[in-house]
C-alpha cells in the first residue's frame, strides 16, 4: 500500500469558534503546504497532528496514517516526525547522542555505525562528539533532519523549517530536506509564510484565512 497521511473532515475549534477546517490526503513523497497569517490556526493543526493539542482546543474529524487511524493515539506512538524553525537539539547530549535518542533501540555498535554513516552522508563526519550549541545554523538544521529521519517516521511535519536561515543556506537546506522526503517516500505537511518555500515544495498549497 502507498504511504499516505489522510486528514478527514478536520474541524478545529478554540472555545466555540471554528479556527479551520481541512480535508486532505497527502501521498508518500508529496508535500502539502499550508499558508496563512499568524493566528489562523497553523500551529494548532500541527499540534493536533503530533498529538499535543492543548485542552483549550477541541476538534472533530480523524487522521489516518498509512490507513491506520491515529486520531487518539498518544504522541509517542504516532511515528509522526516534526521539524521546527529552531533545530531544538538537546543541549545536554552530544550530536551523536541527539541522534541516538531518536533511533529505535538496538545493538549499540550497529547504532554507532549507522550514526557515523548518516553524519558522513550529510557532510558532518567527525561531528558526533561535538556539542550541538557550537554548530553553525546550517549544521544544526542538518542534525535535526538526521535525528528525525533516523527515528524512522511514517510522516513529517515542517513548521516554518527554513525561516531562520539566510538565503543561500535556506535553499541548500530546503533542497536537502525535500530530497530526503521524496527519497523516503514520506507524506509531508509544511506550514510556511514564504512563497519560495511553497513553490519549491511543488505540491498543493492551501491558504488559510486570518
Amino acid at each position, binding site marked *: 500500500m502507498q504511504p499516505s497521511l489522510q486528514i478527514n473532515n478536520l474541524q478545529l475549534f478554540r472555545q466555540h469558534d471554528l479556527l479551520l477546517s481541512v480535508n486532505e490526503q497527502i501521498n508518500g513523497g508529496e508535500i502539502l503546504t499550508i499558508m496563512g497569517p499568524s493566528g489562523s490556526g497553523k500551529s494548532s493543526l500541527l499540534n493536533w497532528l503530533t498529538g499535543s493539542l492543548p485542552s483549550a482546543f477541541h476538534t472533530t474529524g480523524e487522521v489516518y496514517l498509512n490507513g491506520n487511524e491515529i486520531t487518539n493515539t498518544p504522541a509517542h506512538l504516532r*511515528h*509522526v516526525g516534526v521539524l521546527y524553525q529552531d533545530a531544538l537539539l538537546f543541549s*545536554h547530549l*552530544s550530536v551523536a547522542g541527539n541522534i541516538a535518542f531518536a533511533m529505535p533501540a538496538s545493538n549499540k555498535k550497529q547504532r554507532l555505525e549507522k550514526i557515523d554513516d548518516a553524519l558522513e552522508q550529510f557532510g558532518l563526519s567527525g561531528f558526533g562528539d561535538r*556539542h550541538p550549541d557550537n554548530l553553525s545554523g546550517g549544521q544544526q538544521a542538518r542534525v535535526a533532519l538526521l*535525528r*528525525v529521519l533516523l527515528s524512522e517516521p511514517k510522516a513529517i511535519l515542517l513548521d516554518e523549517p527554513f525561516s531562520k536561515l539566510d538565503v543561500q543556506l535556506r535553499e541548500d537546506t530546503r533542497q536537502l530536506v525535500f530530497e530526503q522526503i521524496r527519497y523516503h517516500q514520506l507524506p509531508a505537511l509544511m506550514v510556511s509564510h514564504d512563497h519560495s518555500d511553497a513553490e519549491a515544495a511543488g505540491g498543493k498549497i492551501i491558504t488559510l484565512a486570518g
Partner: protein
Amino acid sequence: MSQINSTVVTRNTEQALAQPTDWFTVLVKLSPKLLLLLLVVPVFGGLIGVILPAFGWAPVLNQYNIGLQAFTALWQTAGIGQMIMLSATTGFISTFVAFVITLMILAAFFNSVWLARIQQILSPILVIPHAAAAIAVGFLIAPSGMLARLISPWLTGWDFAPHGIFPHDPYGLSIIVGLTLKELPFLLLMALGALAQPELGKKLRQQHKVALNLGYCPMTAFFKVILPSLYPLLRLPLLAVLAYASSSVEMPLILGPNTPPTLAVAIMHWFNDVDLNLRLKASAGALLQLVVTGGILALWLLAEKAIRAFFSDSLTNGKREYGGAYFQKLTSVITLLVVIFISLALVGLVMWSVAGFWRFPALLPDTLTLLHWQSAVMQMGTPLINTLVIGAITTLLAIILTLLCLESEQMRGKKVSGFISFILYMPLLVPSIAFLFGLVLVQQLAQQSLAELSHQSSNVKTVYINYINVIITHLLFVLPYVFLSLSSSYRQLDQRFAIVAASLGAKPSKVFFKVKLPQLFSAILIAVALGLAISFGQYLPTLLAGGGRISTISTEAVTLANGASRRTSAVYALMQMLLPLLGFILAWLLPKFIYKSAQR
C-alpha cells in the same frame, strides 16, 4: 437508536484508549492530590489541635471542661497587652522599613549595573538562618560589641563596656533591626525575580525607557510606571514576610526582651512549661496570635488601598522630578550602611569564634585560638547528622513531589488550580506557632493510640516517630519554596522539545527523565540547595515536632545563644551559615561538570 448506540460505543473505546496505563502517568496524575494531602492535613489538623484545647478539650491532658477558662487565664497574664504590641509593632515596622529600602534601591538603580551588584552582595544573606543572623546582630549591637568598640574610647570615653540596653531592649528595636536585615534581601530578590520574567521584565524596562524619553527622572519613572505593575507580584511575598515577622520566635528569643517577651515567645514558653496545664493557655495564645497576625495583614492591605487612592491622581499629574538626585544619594548612603552593618556583624562573628582573650575597647582580639571550634565540632556530631539527614530526606521528597506536580500540569495542559497554589503558600501565611502546637498534640494523640494498639512503645520506635514528625513538619515549609523556585523554570521549558521527543517515539516517562530533567538540571540543584537551607534553618518545627528529643545545629545554636559562651555560640552560628552556603556552592559548581561531557 442504533446511531446513538454506536456513538456511545466509540466514546467508550476512546476513553479506554485515553486511560493512563503506565505507572508513570498514574503517579503523575495522582501527585497533586498527594501534595494537597501532605499540606492540608497537617495545617488543618494542627489548627483543630489548637482550637479544641483552647476551649478546654484536651484528651492528652485529661481535660474535658469545655469553656473559656484558657482565654480568661490568658487575659489575666501580666503584660499580655505589651506582648501583643511588641509582636505587632516589630512585625509591621520591620516589614515596612525593609520594603521602603527595597523600593528605594530598585528605583535608584533600575536599569543600572549596580542593581545586579547589590543583589550579589545581599543574596548570600538569604541563606543565613534567622537564628544565626540574630546572633550576629546581637554581637554587633551589644554594649561590648563591634559598634561600641569602633567608637571607643576616642569618641565615647568608654574604657569599660557600658551598661547598654541592646540587645534585649524593651522596645523591640533590636528585633526590628534583625528582621529588617533578613527581610530586605528576600524582598529585593523577589522583586528582581519578578523583573526577570522574560516578557514582563522586557515590557517594564521598555516602559521605563519611554518614561525617561518623556523627561521623567529615573526614580520618578520607577514609582509612576514600574511600581504599579510590579506591586501585585510582591504582595504575596510581603504578606508572607509580615506573617513571619509578627509570629517568629528565633529573632525575639535572641534579640528581644524577656519581661515581657513577644507573644509568640511567651506561647512557646507556656507550651514547654513543666506545668502541663499551661498548654491550654498556650493554645488560647496561639489563637490570639492568629488574630494579631491577621490584624496586621489586614492593616497592611488597608494601608495599601489608602496609599493607592491617595496617590492615584499624582500618577498622571505630569510632575517629573521629586528631588530624585537627593534621594539617589540618600539611597546610596543607606545601601552602603546596610552593607557595612552586615559585614561588621559577620566579621565580628568570625572573630568571636576564634577569639581568646579580648579586652573591651580593643578592635581585635588579643589572642587567637581554634579551641572553640575544636570543642564545638567534637560535640556537634549528632546534631550535625540529624540536620543533614532530615534536610536530605525532606528536600528529596519536596523535589520529587514538585516535579511530578509540574509534570501533571503539562500533561493536563493547564496550571495547577488556584486552590492548590493557595494551599501551597498557606504554611507561609499562617503563623507557624499557631498550628505547630496543634500538630504536635495530634501527633502525640496518634502516637498514643498506636502504642495502645501494639501494646508496646519501645524507645527506638519513639525516636523514629519523632524523626518522621519532624520531616513531615519541615516539608510544610520546604515545599512552598521548592515549588516557587522550580515552577518558573519548568513552565518556561520550550514545549517543542517535549513534542519533538514524543514525535521521535519517546514515552512520557522517557521525555520526563531524559529530556526535561536534564534541561532542568541546574534549576533542580538550586531548588535542592534552597530546600536544604530552609530545612537546616528550622528551629520551632524541629523543637516541637521532635518532642525536644531531636537536636539539630539550629536548635543547639538558639539554645547556646541564650547563656553559654559567646565564642561557642559564634561557632554554631557560623556552622549554621556554612551548611546552606556549601549547598549553594555545589549547586553552582556541579552543572559545570555534568552534562558537559561532549566536546566543546
